[in-house]
């Protein structure tokens, strides 16, 4: 079962026709004929054309695609020996963030990611990947554990944002995020972040103060959701596409602004079209980054990470 986005409609029509012809040919015991080959060529060209000219909001839709691989899909394919660890030791375990021990080839790593649900039941449990404070505190506990053993930390960002709930406020959502921002900065071990889907504001940043931040080409990273921004600045939540343009939230924009360090290509049509290929890309990128960082001392890693974020911001300065 495929899920089609509105802008994919022309491809969808061709694909359905191709499927129909294929089924018909199979029924008749025939070889694929010229018409089928031609249709497939056209579908492929059309897909290339559409995906070469995606608007920011179309990328938002891809980043939120219900079939898009989530953190656990990557963890399963990129690592071995995955051993999930639970709980913040204070209040609860938050299923919106998963974390645990894993092996990347022979190398131990601590992997942490925001996890969305695949169906309604799972989304209820994981709150659509929107963490509570205890999720961030669990993530920090695991990162600090990794730090003590100089085990590299890999974080996979995919959240609409921190959960806006009564309990989250009562248990200090803002404090939990703030503490992570400070404590990640001083972790004496390599940190590599991959934005695999949605990078929703402070809720994403709270696990993304990394030495290297990579983004999938159809992932997004923003200070506010386009809909949230539209409802405030346009007074109309349906103006999301306009806000998405204005916010400069695509991987290409963020690379240009110097916020991320690299863009990972996705399979044609988006990561959900070929999860195995997408995972192979993530895995290769993490291996390369960790190889680059493996000889760097703990204090030097902290120095570089602090320096990287210290330099962010655009302003002018006149003599006062």
């Amino acid at each position, binding site marked *: 079962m495929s899920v089609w986005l509105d802008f994919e409609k022309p491809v969808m029509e061709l694909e359905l026709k191709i499927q129909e012809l294929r089924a018909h040919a199979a029924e008749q015991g025939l070889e694929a004929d010229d018409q089928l080959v031609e249709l497939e060529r056209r579908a492929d060209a059309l897909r290339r054309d559409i995906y070469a000219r995606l608007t920011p909001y179309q990328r938002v839709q891809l980043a939120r695609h219900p079939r898009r691989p989530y953190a656990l899909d990557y963890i399963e394919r990129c690592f071995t020996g995955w051993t999930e660890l639970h709980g913040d030791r204070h209040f609860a375990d938050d299923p919106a963030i998963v974390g645990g021990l894993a092996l990347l080839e022979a190398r131990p790593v601590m992997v942490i990611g925001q996890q969305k649900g695949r169906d309604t039941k799972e989304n209820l449990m994981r709150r659509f990947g929107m963490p509570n404070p205890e999720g961030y505190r669990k993530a920090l506990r695991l990162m600090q554990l990794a730090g003590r053993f100089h085990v590299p930390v890999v974080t996979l960002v995919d959240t609409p944002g*921190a*959960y*806006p*709930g*009564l309990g*989250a*406020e*009562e*248990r*200090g*959502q*803002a*404090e939990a*995020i*703030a*503490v992570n*921002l*400070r404590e*990640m*900065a*001083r972790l004496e071990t390599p940190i590599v972040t991959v934005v695999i889907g949605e990078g929703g*504001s*402070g809720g994403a*940043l*709270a696990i993304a*103060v990394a030495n290297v931040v990579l983004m999938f080409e159809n992932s997004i*990273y*923003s*200070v*506010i959701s386009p809909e949230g*921004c539209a409802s*405030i*600045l*346009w*007074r*109309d939540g349906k*103006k999301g596409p306009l806000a998405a343009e*204005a*916010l*400069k*939230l695509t991987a290409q*924009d*963020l690379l240009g*602004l110097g*916020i991320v360090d690299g863009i990972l290509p996705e399979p044609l049509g988006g990561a959900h079209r070929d999860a195995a290929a997408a995972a192979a890309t993530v895995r290769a990128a993490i291996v390369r980054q960790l190889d680059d960082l493996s000889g760097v001392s703990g204090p030097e890693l*902290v120095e570089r*990470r*602090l320096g990287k*974020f*210290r330099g*962010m*911001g*655009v*302003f*002018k*300065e*006149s*003599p*006062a």
Partner: protein
Amino acid sequence: MTWLKRERTGIKKKKEPRSDVPEGLWTKCEGCGEALFQTVLEENLWTCPHCDHHFRVPARTAIGYLADPDTFTERFAGLEALDPLEFRDAKLPYPERLKAAQQETGQKDAALAGVATIGGKPVNLVVMDFFFMGGSMGSVVGEKVARAIETAVAERRALVIVSATGGARMQEGILSLMQLAKTSALLVRLQEARLPFVSILSDPSTAGVLASFASLGDVVLAEPKALVGFAGARVIRQTIGEELPPGFQRAEFVLEKGFIDRIVHRKRMRDEVSHILEFFWRSTRGFAPDGGESPHAFRPALPSADGGPGTSARSR
């Protein structure tokens, strides 16, 4: 009550502190509805003498209430926002929004930074201004906080930041978000340098700013009834589909939940901050570096007999 309205829109003095209520001889208290004389409000540091409602005040005014008289020297005043995203909302491009805010407030951006003393102790002070685009933090506010932290370390001063903000500045997109990481990360250096940070939350202190430096004070103080929260109440109500408890996200609620040390009346704030800094001041021998000499005049003093703030360190 027509006379009241007429009065409000009538006379305007030049040097009055601006607030979110119209200027004039009378101002109606948002807390108790009492009509208050402008002069009474000024005498009471823009708090209501009847119900203690704390009016929002611009950064300059807040500095006057918090720093020792005539000790504030502004720094980094030449910083000004750019428009890297070429952001345009429904009506206006960002540079025009900025210009309007600058004309309205007489400030270049949503925070003032500088050095001062509080009860005689040397501090790096950053005070946010809610009247400048909702006190939103973009690159300029983030940079002022960052430099305040760095110079506090270099000059061995305490750090005091007064928040008054709706959060990150959307018009600077992801660059605003990164100010959260930039400011919070630099506090590592302040901690390593063994220098204290007092975070003061005034109304409102919310969203991205609360999710960064504002929550990270060694001591966190708040003005009475200040709005202190991460997510907006409307969004939370929509998400959970139920009404929120009375006093939700007010300073008193947040104190009860354990994320604020003390709620302090504006009239007592300077003394409280001075008193708190005094402990760190003495324990570090005038903010001296490890094993070194204090770069500032250091006069150990005993607290007054009633346990209130000591006074001798304040003499200059």
